[in-house]
Structure formats: C-alpha cells, structure tokens
C-alpha cells in the first residue's frame, strides 16, 4: 500500500546512492589498500552491531544492553571451532553457529525477561553480559585452565566479505521487517504495549522473536570478528563497550530512517579510529565532546539533520512516514 510513495525522486536517489556504495564496498579489496580494507571491516563491525540493535530496540523501545553478550557468544563460538590447533569447521559454518547460539540464548533470556520494562530490562540485559563473562572466566580458570584462546588467522579479504555479507543480510532483514506486518506489531508495542496487547498482538512472541533475530546478527558478527582478534579471553570477548557503543552510534546517526544507524556507526567508528591514532592522549576527551555536541544539537541524530536539509531543498514537502 506504500508502493506509490516510493516512486518518488527520493526513492531513485536513495536507490542510486545505495547501489554506488554497495558496488564500492564489493570492489574495495581490488582498488583499496590493506589499511582501507581493515578500516572498512571495522566500520562494518560497528554498523552490524548498531543495525541489529536498532532492529530490536529501535522499534519496540526496549533498551537492550545485551549486545556484548551475543557478540561475545559469537566470538567464543570461533574460539571453540576455529582454534589455532586446527579449524574444526569451515569459517562460514562457524559464523552461522555463532549466530544460532546467540539467538537460542536470546530466545531463552527473552522469554524470561521481556516482561521487564524500561530501565529494569536495560539493567537485566547489562547484567547478562557480566554474568556470562564471569561464568566463562570461572570456567576458564578452574575447569579448562586456559587464560585465553587463540583463533586461526583468516585472510583479511575473507573477513571483509563475511562482514559485508552479514551487513547486507541485516540491512535487508531490517528493511523488510520494518515494512511488514511484523514491523507494524513492533512499532505498536513501542508506541503503547498495553494497547498493542489488547488489539490482538501477541506482544511476548513478537518481542522474543525479534530479540532472537537481532541476536543472530550480533553473534555472527562476533564469530567473524574473532578471527581478526586472534587472541581472546572473556574480558576481550564480553567487553561492555560493545553494549554501549551501538546505542550511542544509533542515537548519533538517528533512528528515524534505516540508514541512520549505518551513518552513525560509520562516522562514529571512523572518528574513533582517527582520533585514537592522531590524538591518542586526549582522544577520549575529544570523543566525549563530539558526542555531547551531537546529542545537544541533533536530537534526532544525523538523519534528522539530513531530513531537514532535504525538505528545504525539495520545497518543504512533508513526507508521511510509513
């Protein structure tokens, strides 16, 4: 029913830009330097986590801080199946296992805790990260006696293309879910959960399934990222930074449009990289200032800014959000 609205100038422009970016990304290893390939892999890592986070939290309004947990589970899947002593399974299969393991845990955790609302849910999901990390720490210290694990070296281009593949999948999934009946249910939950349940939406099921889908991509991303890290331990794999960064990146980019979190993650991660190398002493300080300014002056993120500029260019026509 929204088809007509997309046959606008805007639709073609976004389509062409998307295509150019996509072709650029696919061919990057052929013309870009190794540094650029690794840099873009890092940007894609953050984009994957941020878009998966938005897939669940953006529409339902449930602030999840479990990203690091699912990411870490994926990392440990690689540690188990791709040790330096010899890979047990092909890399792509391990990526799949990382994703599936994360979504199974998400199903269980979600069924138990998605009745919690607001800050309680956020705190619980954060607790989950710490819980898994500490459990694993205990296991490694007292049962397996391994302080850390080594993961096989994988070609940078393989890591890049796997990351890109996950990125394309998570974007397509988000795009189609947002436009589907399921997306309408999620949006209704985000707007008013009580009303949603009283008009026939099985709110628990919708939330748990979405939580699991989002966890799948986080886990898969973790599994491939592990081959880049090569050395991991519980503190590296379950670093709480990976719970908070996606939230910040999403807010920075703006969640009104699907490309918002991507732009947010890309710019944010790029800033982090360059600031870290150029101003390693004061990079956290600069980073903080950039973030505060961004949130103060762009309450709806970069997307809000782009939308505003766009509507000024196209004569202030108001577009109905679907």
């Amino acid at each position: 029913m929204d088809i007509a609205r997309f046959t606008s100038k805007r639709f073609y422009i976004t389509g062409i830009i998307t295509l150019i970016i996509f072709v650029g990304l696919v061919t990057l290893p052929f013309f870009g330097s190794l540094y650029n390939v690794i840099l873009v892999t890092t940007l894609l890592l953050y984009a994957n986590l941020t878009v998966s986070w938005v897939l669940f939290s953006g529409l339902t309004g449930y602030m999840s801080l479990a990203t690091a947990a699912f990411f870490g589970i994926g990392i440990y899947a690689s540690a188990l199946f791709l040790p330096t002593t010899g890979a047990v399974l092909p890399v792509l299969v391990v990526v799949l296992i990382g994703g599936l393991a994360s979504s199974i845990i998400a199903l269980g955790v979600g069924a138990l805790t998605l009745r919690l609302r607001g800050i309680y849910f956020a705190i619980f999901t954060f607790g989950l990260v710490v819980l898994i990390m500490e459990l694993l720490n205990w296991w490694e210290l007292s049962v397996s006696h391994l302080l850390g694990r080594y993961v096989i070296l994988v070609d940078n281009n393989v890591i890049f293309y796997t990351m890109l593949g996950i990125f394309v999948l998570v974007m397509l999934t988000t795009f189609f879910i947002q436009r589907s009946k399921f997306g309408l249910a999620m949006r209704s939950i985000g707007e008013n959960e009580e009303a949603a349940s009283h008009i026939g939406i099985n709110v628990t099921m919708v939330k748990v399934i979405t939580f699991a889908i989002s966890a799948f991509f986080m886990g898969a991303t973790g599994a491939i990222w592990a081959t880049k890290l090569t050395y991991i331990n519980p503190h590296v794999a379950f670093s709480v930074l990976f719970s908070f960064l996606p939230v910040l990146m999403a807010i920075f980019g703006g969640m009104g449009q699907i490309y918002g979190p991507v732009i947010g993650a890309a710019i944010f991660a790029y800033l982090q990289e360059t600031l870290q190398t150029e101003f390693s002493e004061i990079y956290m300080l600069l980073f903080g200032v950039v973030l505060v300014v961004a949130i103060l002056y762009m309450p709806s993120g970069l997307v809000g800014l782009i939308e505003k500029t766009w509507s000024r260019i196209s004569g202030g026509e108001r577009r109905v959000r679907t």
Partner: protein
Amino acid sequence: MYVLEGKGVTKYFGGLAAVSEVDFYVEQGEVVGLIGPNGAGKTTLFNLISAALVPKPGIIRYKGKNITGLKPYKICRMGISRTFQTVKIFANLPVFQNVLAGSFFGTSPGMSSANAAREASESLEFVGLSALAATPAKDLTLGNQKRLEVARALATKPEVLLLDELMAGLNQTEVDEAMELVKRIRDRGITIVMIEHVMKAIMNVCDRIVVLHHGEKIAEGTPQEIATSKKVIEVYLGEPANAGS
C-alpha cells in the same frame, strides 16, 4: 446463554478489594452501562474482562466458555475489544496505521494486507475519520483520538465492545456525536458495555445499568429503576433533581 458472564469476580490490590465478588451478565445485542463513583472498581472490572488482570477468585465466561486467565491478545481475537479511559493510541503512527494494526492482528491470523487495509478504511469511515487517515494520531483532538480508539477496536471485529469513559473530557457537541456513534455500533449488532459518568448518555443509550460502589455491585436495572433507586442516589447520583440531567 449470555455472551459475557462473570461469577464471583474478585480482585485485590494489596489488602484492598478493588472488585469484590461481582456477578454480572451481558446479553447479546445489549448496551450495558457500568457506573459508580471514582474508585468503585469499574475500570478494574474492564481490565479483568479484557484480561489485563486476572480475577482471583472468580470466573469470566464468554459465550459459555471459560476465558479466565487467557492472554489479552487471545481475548481480543475471540471477539472482546476495548477502549481505554486515558487514550492509548499509537501516537507517532498515522491514524490509518493505528487502525490497520487492529484489523491485522485482532482477527484471525493470516489476514491478508489487502483485507486488513479494507477493514481499516471501513472502520475509519464508520467513525468519520477517513479524512484524517494520514495524520499522526498525536495531532488529533481528544474527541478524535477517542474515535480513533473506537475505530481501532472495531477493526478487530469484536462481538463485545468495552468502552471506558468514551465521553469524558468531551464538549457537548462531541458527547452528542459519541452517543450517536454508540447507537450506530449497537445497530451493527455489537454488544456494548460502557463505563460512563455522563448521566445523560448512560440514561439515553443503555438498556441496563450496573452500579458499583467500593468494588461491590450495589444495584442493577433499567435506567429508570436506577435513576429512582434510593441506594444509588445516596452513593452516587446525589439529589434526585439532578438525576438524569
């Protein structure tokens, strides 16, 4: 067989009985009014029927079937729909999407988009909001937001509609329009239970009235019987001269 029936329905909040051993029944096609002073337990009773809360103890039956303890979404799909005392619209969604959510999920699963969209437009047309279909719901007036809630509830194809203070906060014209709307819904064959403080409306459209006070049912009868009942006048209506005005 009653379309809706409650036996010994009770709900405690801490030590306080919000609803206490209330027996009620609703017949097919009826308009039943639920009145009582603030805090009488009217909305709690609605929450119990629509399964936002579970009675303890007590049983609620819908068309003879025990529905106690079912999830709200199931109750809705079975055919009991509701509106809320304080409007609970999907504020940032366009009016049409609000209603579409109702027609998509409130009926049998497997509703096609085309059918859902048709049902949604029909509901909007019925309450007279078609012209505002693309407006974000938060930009509507209170009166229209209440209509939107009704449209969304109707889109779920209910057999029983629970209206919680549809007319509260509306001006005289809007109240008249809302009364008209209630009558038209009834004429569609939908059974209505309504909580209302606007006495004119209650007396005008209801076939039967149930009066709650401190969680207990203290009276039940036709509008005429209720308007003249000594007990009701004492706890609720005030001086006889004001009753029905």
